[in-house]
Structures are given as structure tokens and as C-alpha cells.
């Protein structure tokens, strides 16, 4: 996978995935999309030179636009100017049993 000036390297992808997964409004990364790396994949993250897409399963608490704001703040540094697109693929409702999230 070619590297590029924006640094869509494994470290970049892993860093984004880690930050997103630890965001309070996020239950887990979603398997709706993933990044492909040698020997493994990182679910819920897709990076490009000018944009980063993250795919999440949200918690049922704060408004979902607030989740995007939280992610934008947490990711500000690692985004390095790239546009952020947050995809809320699913939501965990109160009392809902959480199935195996992004594999």
C-alpha cells in the first residue's frame, strides 16, 4: 500500500481507530467498512489523502451530531487537515445485547 504525504500508513489508521473506539459516544467501530493492511484489517476506518471516514456503532445517549463533534475534537491532530466523515452505522439501545462488534 503506497504511503502518501497525508500519511495513510498503518500507524495513521491504527491511531484513528484507537481514538474513535475510545470516544464516549461510540460503542464500537463498525464493520461496515475497513482498512486493509498487510496481514490484517482495521474495521471502521477508511483514510484518503483529503478525507477520513470512520464507521461507528453509537451509544444511545448524546445526540449523534454531538458524537461527530467529539470525534472531530479527538481526531483534530491526527486528521492533519483532512475532512472527517462520520458514519453512524448502528446504535446500541438500552438493554440491547451487543453482538460481536467489528471483527
Amino acid at each position, binding site marked *: 500500500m503506497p504511503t502518501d504525504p497525508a500519511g495513510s500508513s498503518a500507524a495513521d489508521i491504527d491511531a484513528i481507530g484507537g481514538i474513535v473506539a475510545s470516544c464516549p459516544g461510540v460503542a464500537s467501530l463498525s464493520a*461496515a467498512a475497513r482498512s486493509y493492511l498487510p496481514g490484517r484489517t482495521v474495521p471502521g476506518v*477508511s483514510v484518503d489523502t483529503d478525507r477520513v471516514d470512520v464507521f461507528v456503532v453509537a451509544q444511545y445517549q448524546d*445526540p449523534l451530531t454531538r458524537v461527530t463533534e467529539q*470525534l472531530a475534537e479527538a481526531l483534530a491532530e491526527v486528521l492533519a487537515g483532512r475532512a*472527517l466523515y462520520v458514519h453512524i452505522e448502528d*446504535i446500541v*439501545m438500552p438493554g440491547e445485547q451487543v453482538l460481536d462488534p467489528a471483527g
Partner: protein
Amino acid sequence: MTSAVSANKTPALGSDSTGSALETTETVLVTTHGKTSIADVVVEKIAGLAAREITGVYKLGGGGGSRAFGAIREKIPGGGSGLTAGVEVEVGARQTAVDLDIVVEYGVEIGELTKAIRRNVISAIERMTTLEVTEVNIVVHDVHVPNQDSDEPVDSRVE
């Protein structure tokens, strides 16, 4: 982003080979910090919870083979969820319409009940997603009468 949404649309069952999330029907809400896309299932779950919370709603769904209310979806392994039974949504960029299929408790004043359901569904969706709810259509397809449950065990004549 897909355009037309029909009542019989096939729901996305997970990532396809390209991992493209753009094949699901999504909303895109522009906030100052980034763009938010919300999958249909999210709006459905929120609407479903808001409807079931109302006292007098016995359950959602079970509307007898109506494809529009997820009867097909629920039979697909991993593709259905009890939380979206009886709920169909049509989601646009800024608005959404909700269709509910419910069973009411016997003795409930259905007019007041549906008003309460609409209030709660609209409030929950607008709070969580900022989508404007243009309509909440409700079909009452059955009444639950206690002591006449079909799910009570029946002695079978044969073994």
C-alpha cells in the same frame, strides 16, 4: 448515496466486498466539525424504542407477512433485530418519515395512544439525529386481550 427508497427495499446486511458504506441509504448532516451519515437502522431503533415506551403499546410488528414491516428481514440470520420489528423509515438528507405497525393493549383509547406515540417518536428522533420527522404513520393491526393469548400452551390432540 442512493436516491429512491421504497417500502420494499432490501436492507444492507453488512459490508459488501468493496466495504462501501455509500450503498446504504444514509442521511448526511452537516455540522461544523464534520459530516454525519446515519444509517436507516439507527433511526428505526430510535423510533422503535420511542413507540414501545408508550404505555398501551403491547408490541411492534408481527403484522402477518407484510414485507414492509421487516417480516422478511427478521428471517435472515443476523439481518434482523427485534428492536426494528414493525418499524420502517424513509430517510432523506434532512427529513425522515416513519411507518409503525403496532399491537395495542385492550381498553386503550387508540386516538390518544397514537398521539402519544407520534409525540414520543418525533421527539426522540429529532433529539438524537436532528432530522425533521415529516410524518409518523401508524397501523394498529391487532389488539392484545389478556387471558385469550394464543401463546398459552394448548393441549395437542396428537403426538
